[in-house]
């Protein structure tokens, strides 16, 4: 799409949306948000970028094939369920630890890994659909 305003605004928009998506993902446990919503935001960011600059640019920027990202997400989510087995708890039981970095306590958990997996699956799937649809505009 050849609108000047759109093309100028898009990089900023994409950056903002991606940052926001990560923010939404991480705050999800305590505030509205989470992997699914975050993933949708990131996917729309890529979709917009694709409309503005063409699909090849987005594909290059992503480096990995979006479906590979989704696959990794699914894998990560499944793996996140495994550690609890080591402690004799059912599959997918959440484990928590709160190590402190530079004096700030950060809650880390397998649940977070799981949610990141969800995020990646959503990003990957929706981005690949959107990109595939956009791609055909050019052929």
């Amino acid at each position, binding site marked *: 799409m050849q609108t000047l305003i759109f093309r100028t605004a898009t990089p900023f928009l994409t950056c903002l949306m991606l940052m926001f998506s990560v923010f*939404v993902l991480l705050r*999800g*446990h*305590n*505030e*509205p*948000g*989470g*992997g*699914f*919503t975050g993933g*949708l*935001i990131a*996917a*729309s960011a890529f*979709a*917009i970028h694709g409309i503005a600059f063409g699909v090849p640019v987005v594909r290059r920027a992503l480096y990995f094939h979006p*479906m590979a990202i*989704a*696959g990794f*997400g*699914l894998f990560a*989510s*499944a793996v996140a*369920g495994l550690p609890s087995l080591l402690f004799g708890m059912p*599959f*997918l039981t*959440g484990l*928590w630890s709160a190590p402190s970095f530079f004096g700030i306590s950060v*809650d880390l*958990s397998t*649940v977070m890994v*799981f*949610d990141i*997996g*969800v995020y990646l*699956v*959503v990003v*990957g*799937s*929706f981005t*690949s*659909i*959107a990109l*595939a*649809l*956009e791609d*055909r*505009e050019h*052929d």
Partner: protein
Amino acid sequence: MLPFVGALFAPLLTRVMKHNAGWLLAAVPLLVFVHFAGMLGTVGSGAAVSAGFDWAPSLGLRFSWYLDGLSLTFALLISGIGTLIVIYSGGYLKGHPHQGRFFSFILLFMGAMLGLVVSDSFLMLFVYWELTSITSFLLIGFDHGREASRRAALQALLVTGLGGLSLLAGLLVIAQATGTTELSSLLGSGDALRNSPLYLVALVLVLGSAFTKSAQFPFHFWLPNAMEAPTPVSAYLHSATMVKAGVYLVMRLNPVMGDTVAWETILPLFGGVTLAVGTLLAVRQTDLKLMLAYTTVASLGLLVMLTGLGSDKAIEAAALYLIAHSMFKGALFMVAGLIDHETGTRDITGLRGLRKAMPITFVAAMLAALSMGGLPLFFGFLAKEEIYATLGSPEGWQAALLIVAICGNALMFAIGFAVALRPFMGDATKTPKAAHEGPISLWLGPVVLGAAGLAAALASPIAHRLFSSPTASAVAGSPIEVTISTIPHLGVPLVLSGLTVALGIVAYLGLDRLRAAMAGVLRAIGWGPDQGFDQVLRGLLRLATGLTRIIHNGRLDIYMTVTFIAVAATLLLPMVLFDELPAMPYVPALRFYEWGVLAIAVIGVAAVVHARSRLTAIVSLGIQGFAVALLYMLFGAPDLSFTQFMVETLSVVILALVMTRLRLAPTDHRPLRQKLLDMAIAGACGIGFALLLLKVTQMPFDDRLSQFFNTYSKTIAHGRNVVNVIIVDFRGLDTLGEIAVVMVTGLAILALVRIRSKKTEVRPTVAEEA
């Protein structure tokens, strides 16, 4: 189970060892045979061996086996004859390019058949039952280059597969009626099944499966066609083992289902008719294998008939005949294959004077035929004596059975000797191949089986103690002692036997004339179940094609219409029919901005309806979606509204992309009538959902779950956002499944897009045509 492992390695071994692999592979069934023979003592004393482990305890499913006299006799027959068959096929298929595959199939079948007879749980029984059908399909169609082979394989699969479904249904009904899913406990349940109101249903279903498997009239046609299979298969599956699975089932269920009027009418009736039809059709044939195949049908009929009569004598006779038949028929089939293999033909009219060329084969054939004919000193004689002891003093309509049995046996006698004696006598004739004796691997089987028929009769007390009595006891459900011996004793049975033999000799001498007569009769009838099968199949295919044309017509708009009509019907019909319509909701006082949001939603919908171009419609749909998201926000579901916003945005983007890609006309050009119909359907769906939701909210609300989540979300799962905690923690497994679905859907869409993009270059899209 060992045979399955054997099947895995068979092709490899055959590549290395060529046809000699048969000798090594025969060790597999031999080991099984020895293993089962080791249990003879235990089982012979009346005990049953059973074991197993839980598979899905919550469903009451166990992987378990149960071994009593009946199972053990079957297992020994399967593995014993299997050993000989594997050796035999080593010689028979020497040099065949797919010999390894053949060994593999036949061992697979053996495993399935063994599994079938030792199964305790219904599920296992069914699975193995179907496995035998499938392996039989593979074996019949082994020579898959030939049309007839493929047809026979398919026919066998369809007929026995149909029976398998019937078995599954029957077993489910039995489980429903008695509350058990294991044969062992079913056998101990006494009259529970007989007195159940579901008895007749179960009986019909079970017999449906047994009759198809054991080729009872009118399902007998698949068995002779199955003779397209290589001879070892015919000898093994279609005479000695698989076709007896139906008989096994009937015998197995005799203690709990037998002894009723229905049982004692249906079984002897079908068995008797099968016996008569089988022998008469056998006379018609000139092909050695086909003659034997029809006598197998007849023998199976005889077994079913005897089991159906249900008296102790009848069951003894059935047990004896079962064992005898497996031995002599297996041997005769192998002889037929041997003759075919060494002379190049198995047409009885062209075979004469082979006794000089093939002396060992001749001996084996005679041994088997003497047993089949039921002459003294052979095991078949014992069986026949018992049969006549059963039918000797007939009451009422059993007299008909006696006549059928005598004629059937006489004709089987004639055919047995026609196969075993006629090709060997007289002057040698010219055959396609110069006749000569086969290698040891080929004649070993028939000789051993033929000799076993003699030995078992001579040592009848031992044979009875080990096999006959336990088998008969298991079939009857109470201890039975089989005592009959080969020494002829004067009485009705002996007279009847003599009559049979005399009739048999007459029939043997007049076989050619009988054959011509039968051929004439059959021509006069002109139609048989075999043609019937083809007609049914053709009809079914036409029906399926027609249905597919109607349902799967390639028009997306019709699919959508049908789907949404179904949705509307599911939503509305139950509420209307069961008078569950919600009460008129009370309209709360809304604030002005809430009214405003509602107004936006309504405007959005109105815009969709009025939009001139598709793009406008899509964007308008987005407006409506956003308004709904706002409503969620206002009424305290921030997570939901957040997601709704994102979904709306993305769906507008993706829909717009799809629309541009599909190259649809920019405006809607449906005729008015179509528009009105679509509107009605859409309206019905919408109203249905609204009513359903109203109804749901008017139900008393059970808030135990919400309370639990609210209480524990922070303490257990360290999160304040309950929705998210539920998604990623409490119901994490669900989410895992959901994201897997998301991903698979993504892949599917990706594939669809790719396919379409290639096709659009060739021709315009379907949507455009529509």
